[in-house]
């Protein structure tokens, strides 16, 4: 497949607007603003089957269609650049090496939803990517691609980078809005949905960086073209896959939607890190999604295939674990993450993430009991579905899937009072 999202990243001085435009950038934008209405843009994106690449996989055009067509209040587009899902590092790549791709996609999307301001919420730790984005935004303003009367039209929209300050939960769309309002990043109960009442009660759309980066291609080459990439209309377009863990060549790889997992690991990724340590498990979509055992890894990386396999594409953070991995240790580390990141607003997540972490700590330290394994699963079950936002589910799914698929190892760890894997590796 030709490089689409990553076509510029290896060029010298790729973040500059000159390089971007020399490669055909902003053509879609300059064409669309005068000749297409906002709803037309939305229609194209809807037709293309573009689904959110932040983790939830929600159809993008459909989300935009929830926005009011009349302007009674300011409209906002919020770009979710809070990339904090463990295993994920693709948005950073785009922002650092092709910021104008992100900008063009964001502004086209802002146009589609009649936005007055587009805020790019970048996680606080991405200091350098934020600097790159700010420089690129200045270039875009200079060319009249942002600000007042864009491309000579009567549409005006500001483009502003807003830095987070270290909270995974702010990647949740309603928490992002609350944080942007100058508050602790607390998610909100829904309804109302952001398109009805979002940032300061105004109609708001939140989209992931990679999702928005697809938009200029859809407008330029058409929805039908987008649909030719990937297995079907529900799983379409180019995709960035983040490969990490026990492989020879971890990194971001672009491929069509539906790339086979094994191809990613063994061909693109160079195969397992050590020949004597075969594949044991893969988390295919960022740490929030259920883990797959090695024998379950003959699967394609698209939304529906992974769902059928009992997991999810999520943020496409593919984390590979070989035979040296202690699954108790791995799960403990994941549970630590959710405990650390829980915002604390609602009871099941606030208390449950701490509880699960402590049980796992105890098991790992050799003080586990057999009943702890079922207790762990039950606590996870009690969190799932009962929380304000999906972080609760995200904390529960790894625990449920690890216990389900590696129960023997947990039991062995409990029985032996220590890890039985590391001593064998």
């Amino acid at each position, binding site marked *: 497949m030709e490089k689409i999202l990553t076509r510029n990243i290896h060029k010298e001085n790729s973040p500059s607007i000159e390089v971007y435009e020399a490669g055909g950038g902003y053509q879609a934008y300059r064409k669309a603003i005068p000749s297409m209405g906002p709803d037309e843009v939305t229609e194209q994106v809807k037709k293309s089957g573009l689904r959110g690449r932040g983790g939830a996989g929600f159809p993008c055009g459909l989300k935009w269609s929830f926005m009011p067509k009349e302007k009674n209040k*300011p409209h906002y587009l919020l770009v979710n650049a809070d*990339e*904090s*899902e*463990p*295993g*994920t*590092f693709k*948005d*950073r790549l785009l922002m650092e090496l092709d910021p104008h791709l992100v900008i063009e996609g964001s502004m086209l999307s802002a146009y589609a939803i009649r936005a007055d*301001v587009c805020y790019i919420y970048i*996680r*606080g*730790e*991405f*200091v*350098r990517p934020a600097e790159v984005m700010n420089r690129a935004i200045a270039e875009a303003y200079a060319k009249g691609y942002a600000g007042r009367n864009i491309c000579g039209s009567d549409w005006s929209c*500001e483009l*502003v980078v*807003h*830095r*987070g*300050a*270290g*909270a*995974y939960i702010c990647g949740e769309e309603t928490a992002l809005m609350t*944080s*942007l*309002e*100058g*508050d*602790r*990043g607390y998610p909100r109960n829904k309804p109302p949905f952001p398109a009805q009442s979002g940032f*300061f009660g105004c109609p708001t759309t939140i989209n992931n960086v990679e999702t928005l980066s697809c938009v200029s291609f859809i407008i330029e080459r058409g929805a039908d073209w987008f649909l030719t990439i990937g297995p079907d209309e529900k799983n379409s377009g180019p995709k960035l896959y*983040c*490969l*990490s*863990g*026990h492989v020879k060549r*971890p*990194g*971001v790889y672009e491929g069509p939607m539906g790339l086979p997992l094994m191809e990613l690991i063994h061909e693109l990724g160079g195969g397992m890190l050590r020949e004597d340590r075969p594949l044991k498990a893969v*988390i295919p979509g960022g*740490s929030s999604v259920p883990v797959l055992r090695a024998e379950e890894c003959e699967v394609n990386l698209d939304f529906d295939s992974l769902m059928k396999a009992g997991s999810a594409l999520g943020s496409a*953070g593919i*984390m*590979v*674990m070989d035979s040296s*991995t202690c699954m108790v*240790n*791995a799960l403990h*580390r*994941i549970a630590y*993450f959710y405990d*650390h*990141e829980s*915002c604390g607003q609602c009871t099941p997540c606030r208390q449950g993430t701490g509880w699960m972490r402590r049980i796992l700590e105890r098991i790992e330290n050799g003080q586990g009991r057999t009943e702890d394994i079922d207790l762990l699963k039950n606590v996870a079950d009690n969190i799932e579905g009962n929380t304000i936002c999906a972080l609760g589910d995200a904390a529960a799914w790894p625990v449920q899937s690890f216990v389900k698929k590696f129960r023997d190892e947990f039991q062995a760890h409990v029985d032996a009072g220590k890890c039985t894997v590391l001593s064998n590796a």
Partner: protein
Amino acid sequence: MFGQEFEKTVDEIVARYPQPRAALLPVLWEIQRHKGWIDGECERWAGERLGVSPAHVHGVVTFYTMYKQRPTGKYHIQLCTTLSCMLRGSDDLLEHLEEKLGIDVGETTPDGKFSLQRAECLGSCGTAPMFQLNDDYHEDLTLEKVDQLLDSLP
């Protein structure tokens, strides 16, 4: 409390938002950039400037991990220890750093040069293990690389 230059910057920041309170996070960043950390006086100032209570400001400062409530070392190291980095040896790196610097996580060296913190996923899993040193990422780390880097810092 802060100079005119600073106030002007804050005014520019506030202008980007529909309500002043939304400028709290960037204003706190500006304060931290200026002073190195954020104390009660700064929180009170920010609250007054943006029309929120000081308790609200303190609530925000303590919610986000990157706002510092006390000074840290000249070089503040935040080592990622989440799953992918753990799989690629961050635990060994942590042990090495604690030993080399002679401090535990959360502490600063007596000469004030280095401070060490654990961090959750920093979005650099493809180049694990890694850490963030002040504003910069240092990736594909090995024990040797770490020694070389830290020994070379003025």
